[in-house]
């Protein structure tokens, strides 16, 4: 291959974020919520296209991240595209990389447009964790199968006699989904582990969680999310106007009372300093220069670069350090060159461990190969309007939301450069660098 001339590099064209919108994030309250993933995607997609004056069939492609696909909505991207009236001829596919799915959709669209394969793409994330199914145990499935296969009456009776009431104890699908099959650890346990490795104390995790709630409450009060959040209406006319997991009156005292949920009794990760289980959807519109002109669109930001990294599943929470550092180095930036950061708040301890890692000389040298640690990330620049701890973490949506919110937050403050990054269950992470225009 060496003898061949180098292949011609594809002419990279800039990729713009034109607009975006999401639903309010609705906390799962022990039963299926009023909306499926596609219901959510349709409700925030319709007004988004309308306010940009875009004909639904003007797009080239629809890409949607979704982890817990419900059985009535296989390939939710396509179902959403059709329900949005985007036409029978609209190609649409769904992407799944667990907690990074909503960013994976943007990144895939970004690469298509950058390489000249498309001009206008709707990229989103949708998740209704409240609809996660109850599952039968494997032993129950086997029992059913045996009963079905039994032909003669004695064989049937024999199969029936193997019934045990315990077979019908359901397995909560979500719990299985949040347990890493390789490491055998629950996501909360991975947070316990990174807290230990970087010496994060319960008190600082609780303090971080409190700040998340306070920041979101302030953003809601200030009306800063108005343009980003589109109210939901169910078919009985009930309106859902705001993210409903926020607790503005939260306090350190209340948080410190909570018992650890994953590693009793000595653990430190509680329901209060973890992200919430939530339903929600989010979209962004990606466009090429040509699409901007053709449809008379005003872009908000340009996507500069993106990076995916991976590490051991047990410490998946440290992922953002890897992907963001790679992005910074490739673009020649320091931590401080980035005006605003969105690091998805899977767990308070996990976010704090990432910040510690950047200040940890040994870690930076051994793992990142840096002579000097990257240093301190100014908390005033991080998750300035709250995050998954106060908002909730609809897994397939969060990656999309942090990019969308980063754009809107940079714009609001007249700032230029931002990174959105998330840790991903299974031991990966994604990061995206954007600049406002």
């Amino acid at each position, binding site marked *: 291959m060496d003898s061949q001339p180098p292949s011609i590099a594809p002419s990279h064209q800039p990729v713009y974020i034109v607009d975006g919108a999401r639903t309010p994030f609705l906390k799962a309250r022990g039963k299926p919520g009023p909306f499926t993933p596609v219901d959510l995607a349709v409700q925030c997609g*319709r*007004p988004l296209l309308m*306010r940009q004056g875009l004909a639904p069939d003007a797009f080239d492609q629809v890409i949607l991240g979704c982890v817990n696909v419900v059985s009535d909505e296989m390939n939710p991207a396509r179902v959403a595209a059709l329900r949005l009236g985007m036409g029978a001829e609209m190609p649409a596919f769904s992407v799944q990389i667990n907690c990074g799915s909503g960013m994976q959709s943007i990144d895939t669209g970004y690469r298509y447009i950058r390489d000249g394969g498309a001009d206008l793409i709707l990229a989103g994330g949708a998740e209704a964790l409240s609809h996660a199914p109850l599952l039968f145990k494997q032993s129950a499935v086997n029992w059913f199968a045996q009963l079905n296969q039994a032909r003669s009456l004695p064989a049937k009776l024999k199969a029936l006699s193997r019934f045990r009431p315990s077979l019908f104890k359901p397995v909560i699908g979500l719990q299985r989904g949040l347990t890493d099959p390789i490491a055998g650890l629950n996501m909360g346990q991975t947070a316990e582990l990174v807290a230990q490795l970087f010496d994060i104390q319960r008190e600082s995790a609780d303090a971080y969680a409190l700040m998340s709630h306070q920041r979101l409450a302030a953003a809601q009060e200030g009306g800063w999310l108005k343009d980003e959040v589109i109210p939901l*209406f*169910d078919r*009985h006319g009930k309106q859902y106007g705001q993210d409903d997991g926020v607790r503005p009156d939260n306090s350190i005292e209340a948080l410190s009372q909570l018992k650890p949920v994953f590693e009793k009794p000595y653990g430190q990760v509680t329901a209060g300093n973890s992200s919430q289980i939530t339903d929600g959807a989010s979209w962004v519109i990606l466009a090429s220069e040509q699409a901007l002109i053709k449809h008379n669109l005003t872009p908000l930001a340009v996507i500069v670069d993106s990076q995916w990294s991976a590490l051991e599943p047990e410490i998946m929470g440290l992922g953002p350090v890897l992907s963001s550092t790679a992005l910074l180095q490739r673009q020649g930036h320091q931590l401080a060159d980035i005006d605003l950061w969105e690091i998805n708040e899977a767990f308070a301890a996990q976010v704090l461990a990432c910040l510690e890692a950047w200040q940890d000389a040994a870690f930076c040298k051994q793992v990142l190969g840096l002579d000097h640690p990257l240093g301190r990330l100014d908390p005033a620049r991080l998750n300035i309007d709250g995050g998954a701890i106060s908002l909730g973490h609809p897994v397939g949506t969060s990656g999309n939301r942090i990019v969308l919110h980063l754009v809107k937050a940079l714009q609001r403050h007249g700032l230029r450069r931002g990174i959105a990054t998330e840790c991903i269950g299974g031991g990966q992470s994604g990061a995206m660098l954007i600049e406002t225009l």
Partner: protein
Amino acid sequence: MTASVLSALAARRMEIGPFSPAELKVSPRRWQHWHLKRDEQNVAWLLMDKADSSANVLSESVLREFSEIIAALKSDMPSALVIRSAKPGSFCVGADISEFRELHTEPDVINKLVEAHLLAQHLVDLSCPTIAIIHGAALGGGLELALCCDYRLAVKGATFGVPEVLLGLHPGLGGTARLPDLIDPLVAMDMMLTGRTIHDAQASQLGLIDQLLEERHIGKAVTAVLDKQITVDRRNLRARPFRLDWVRRLAAWRMRKQADAKVAPQQYPAPQALIKLWERHGNSPDQVLHREIYSFAHLLNTPSSRNLVRVFFLREQLKALGDPGKGRHKPAPVQHVHVIGAGAMGGDIAGWCALQGLRVSLFDTEPKAIGKALSNLTELCRKKHRSAAQTRDILDRLIPDPDNSGVAVADLVLEAVPEDLQLKRQVYAEIEPRMKPDAILATNTSSIALDKLRSGLADAGRLVGIHFFNPVAQMQLVEVVAHSTARSSALERASTFVGQINRLPAPVSSDPGFLVNRALTPYLVEAIGLLDEGLSAEAIDQVAIDFGMPMGPLELADQVGLDICLGVADMLREQLDSNLPEAPEWLRSKVSKGELGRKTGKGIYRWKHGKVQKKYRRKQAPRGTQERLLLPMLNACMACLREKVIDDADQLDGAMIFATGFPPFRGGPMQYAEQLGFDTIEQQLQQLSEKHGPRFTPDAGWTAPGWTAAPDE
């Protein structure tokens, strides 16, 4: 892609036996309305394809050709005869009703029917198996034709009905005999008495069809008939008890009771005639076949049926206004409607548009109102038996739009905010610059003149009135209101929009009250006056019901809302020189107390769960009450015609029937007036005005009806 894949392939979907789709388009052809060809199994495929028509009807020439074809087949008998429609939409929708109007006497009708019956009998007697393949609607004569075949195979989605009763008739091509002979006679009678349509699965269950299939399996099903693999049980055990006279008499007694409860026999004689036919002769289908001809001929010549046939054409006429531009430049259909104001009217209009397949955005400053519109739409979908998937799609089309961003993408913006001139102008000032250049601005106002509303607009030509009636999902008529500078293309597109949402447009001018409210108000006001004279509300309403109105004027006032009625009456009194009396003080105080009628639970009547609570009253209204109620309405109609509020008497009659339920069997107010005689009306009004005051002053049009003769005034 140049076309949708599925639509490009659509022509291939239909099973047309030995024909190719191109063959059906060839002209000239042997028969004007039919295609006939045999396949390699010697099955004759006969496709009904009435020339110059989108649907098949059994006109005289269609039947004549059919008769020739049957005769030709007899001389060279095929192995089977398959009859189906070449029209993509339906099998056959019945008789050619326009020909009814050319039959002036009973003997005329009888001659016609005898011929048609003979033809049907030839089909029944054909010695080869005959198979009707039905897709879409098979109605009236269309279904009766299928009943003459040995087998009926239906494609999924087919519907069946014998709606002749809606024209004051009963089936006339043997249906009264063959339908009760084939299926449960009680169901057959019910279908004929109500005119209701039944869907494919029901028809299959009833035994009305022998197989229900997908289009792609028709060929195999025909072969299965040839191979005698389809066996059908034609014993019809359910019909057996009704061969006994006393059983039929008992059943007929019940049917009569039910029919009388719905319509008065003097006003609508068809149900009684049908019941009589079956009761007397039901033990012998041949007798019924024979007697059906005379009964039908008699009914067709009753004024009731003549008027109902007329109303059928009035409806067609209004419908045609909603589909203008045949052959000419057709207005672009509306794809997206934006509704401003999610009150009772705006919310329901938005919901109706979504139900009818349009994309709709709904703005209101109050999110609760938008939510209410959504829940109403969910309920409407349930009432209209929409499936879960259909309901989902309908709700997906209604976009809550608290940011009012739909203005910029809509083809038609419909304003339905409260009746306040300043408020409306303010709304227009805000939205007009954001609207698409060719978009229509429509107002649902009922009481503000359009020339006042247009004054602040940069482009006044785009403003039209699109006036819906309450309840939106039930009232078929929509007034399309013109002002002097409205662009004709905008008006035409507005009418097209009304047609798109399956409503009947009535073009009217922007005179106060337009047509319907102006004609209705004097009638409501007179009812209020009678109430003041000591008559009970029940007695007054009963007079109108006896006349044939669906409800009395006072119940109607409660239903519409006393506040709205009062508002319209005040406006008309102010703006028109019509001698409308002042509203009584008690009415104003009721309105100010919030006793507005149905919506508040109390008005003139008490209302419980949306139902009026009437008391039994022994005392009836005195003679002459009917004239006092109705003549003011007729008088206002005449004024509207004379002033050219609406183009002609036909449109007026249609509008009043479809907006107010003016008794269809009377053919509409102007038709009724003509029957009474203009002179008589003028005299009666004169007498009433001497006795009760100037509000009865006869309109000038009664004595000088120049309005019919002068089209260009």
